[in-house]
């Protein structure tokens, strides 16, 4: 276990999580217990402009959504690498600075490629 002083700083986070969880349980739980439930087929069926649903809700997503998220993850990871670098920049000197510069340059080339190839456009 880590230093208790460190853990104590997370007490507000814990309290926040407890409140958030409590609210969720409160809202869903009480509506389950108190609200009247008298389902019938007309009420529970999916509503689509008065017609029976044409297709399931599992429609296929366009693959471009996936491309956008994947590119997002990559830049998210890049940021994850930037955090410790920013914190420790004073300790690692010029070498550490240029090390990150090279890393960013590689990904910037990737970004230029991505832009030029039209991966950021939706058409």
């Amino acid at each position: 276990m880590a230093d208790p002083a460190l853990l104590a700083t997370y007490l507000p986070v814990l309290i926040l999580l407890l409140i958030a969880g409590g609210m969720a349980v409160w809202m869903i739980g009480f509506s389950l217990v108190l609200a009247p439930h008298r389902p019938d087929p007309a009420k529970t069926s999916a509503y689509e402009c008065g017609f029976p649903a044409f297709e399931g809700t599992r429609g296929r997503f366009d693959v471009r959504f996936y491309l956008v998220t994947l590119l997002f993850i990559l830049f998210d990871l890049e940021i994850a690498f930037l955090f410790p670098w920013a914190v420790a920049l004073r300790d690692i000197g010029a070498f550490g600075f240029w090390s990150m510069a090279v890393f960013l340059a590689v990904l910037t080339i990737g970004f230029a490629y991505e832009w030029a190839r039209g991966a950021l456009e939706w058409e």
Partner: protein
Amino acid sequence: MTPADLAFFVLAAVLLASALGVVFTRNPVHAVLLLVLTFFNAAGVFILLGAEFLAMLLIIVYVGAVMVLFLFVVMMLRVDPAKMRAQGRAALPLGLLVAGVLMAEMAAVALSFAALPGAASPAFALPEGVTDARALGRVLYTDFVYPFQVAGLILLIAMVGAIALTQRARPDIKRQSVADQTARRPGDAMEIVKVTPRTGA
């Protein structure tokens, strides 16, 4: 039992329960959401171990980005749960055997674990009064510059690969070209014709 111990047991219990839920739930979207819960609890355990940065990374990268990707993938694939279940059942005996062997091995290692005499342990100790992000930063970009740069290239490959595999050339689609639009002058598209009365155009 200290409050930290109590927190550990709560986090670990929810972690295990939600991880089991990921495996056994019928609805793939629920599985992804349960995985988010699993990651949150794992982040809590990391914090209890003093690994704050890893905990935040787990939330930023996994919960914030990877899980969104998983949701899209689950929605992109048209999965038929019933069919998948039937296939899964056929592979169950072998799967259980492999999982059992792995479990037994891990349990045996966990019970008998001991560092060897002469082991350089622990190789990377956290210096006193330094946050783990800073300790990581001190070595990651200097001592570990080689794997760090390779990691950059791995990200690049992922980027190129994702684009190469999903971008199909689609000549049938008209693209908007802002430069062409702003460079357009009236003369490009209009012709002004002087029409004398009563002769027609």
